[in-house]
């Protein structure tokens, strides 16, 4: 059984879940337990990737709204614009525009990501200074120059490779 945090207690009350497992405020340590939502019945899901919610948003309707639901069984030409909007709000919580409205979450995400990357950079810098040993002596510039000279002396890859780029008469790289 999934436990959902009590964010929409009112909405859950309307869904008739309180009968199953209400907020137990009578705990000895005074904390309240999350409402166990009844997952064996369909829920109202309002997500961009879930276009058709399983149940309408409002289940318990007032007298006016019940009358409106009866009226909409007839011809829709007789419904005013306000009535059509009221019917929409009975069926759905938000419009697509409201549901898909942009938020500032990306700033939080980007900021926290960069903070963690920065912290990781500090860790790496510490490692580079305190943990990682020095480079081998064969990677010094002097050694690398001697190594290159020896490769040219040996005429490595004289047809298309390294030695083919060296001008042996003028002792310099070919232009």
């Amino acid at each position, binding site marked *: 059984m999934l436990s959902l945090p009590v964010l929409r207690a009112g909405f859950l009350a309307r869904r008739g879940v309180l009968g199953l497992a209400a907020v137990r405020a009578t705990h000895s340590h005074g904390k309240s337990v999350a409402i166990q939502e009844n997952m064996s019945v369909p829920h109202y899901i309002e997500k961009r990737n879930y276009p058709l919610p399983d149940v309408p948003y409002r289940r318990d309707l007032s007298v006016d709204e019940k009358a409106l639901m009866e009226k909409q069984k007839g011809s829709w030409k007789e419904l005013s614009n306000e009535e059509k909007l009221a019917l929409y709000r009975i069926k759905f919580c938000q419009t697509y525009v409201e549901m898909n409205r942009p938020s500032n979450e990306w700033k939080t995400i980007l900021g926290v990501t960069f903070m963690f990357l920065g912290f990781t950079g500090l860790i790496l810098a510490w490692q580079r200074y305190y943990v990682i040993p020095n480079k081998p002596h064969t990677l010094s510039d002097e050694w690398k120059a001697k190594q290159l000279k*020896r490769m040219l*002396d*040996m*005429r490595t890859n*004289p*047809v*298309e490779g390294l030695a083919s780029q060296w001008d*042996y008469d003028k002792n310099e790289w070919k232009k």
Partner: protein
Amino acid sequence: MSSLLPKPQMRGLLTRRLRFHAVGAFVFCFGSALIYKFGVAEPRKRAYTEYYKNHDPVASFEALREAGVFESVRPKGK
């Protein structure tokens, strides 16, 4: 009632797709093979023939010997 749309293609869809992609695959494969042959292989063969046309192995050996890379023969100065 809105005007009728033209009837879409109902049959032979996979065949058409396979033909299109088979032709493309052949063109791509042969094309890349030809590009490699005439862009890489042929120039390389020419470079090797050019290099070895007037290549004097003895002179090349002497040059290497003078550079001091051998262990079995020292440069002539020694």
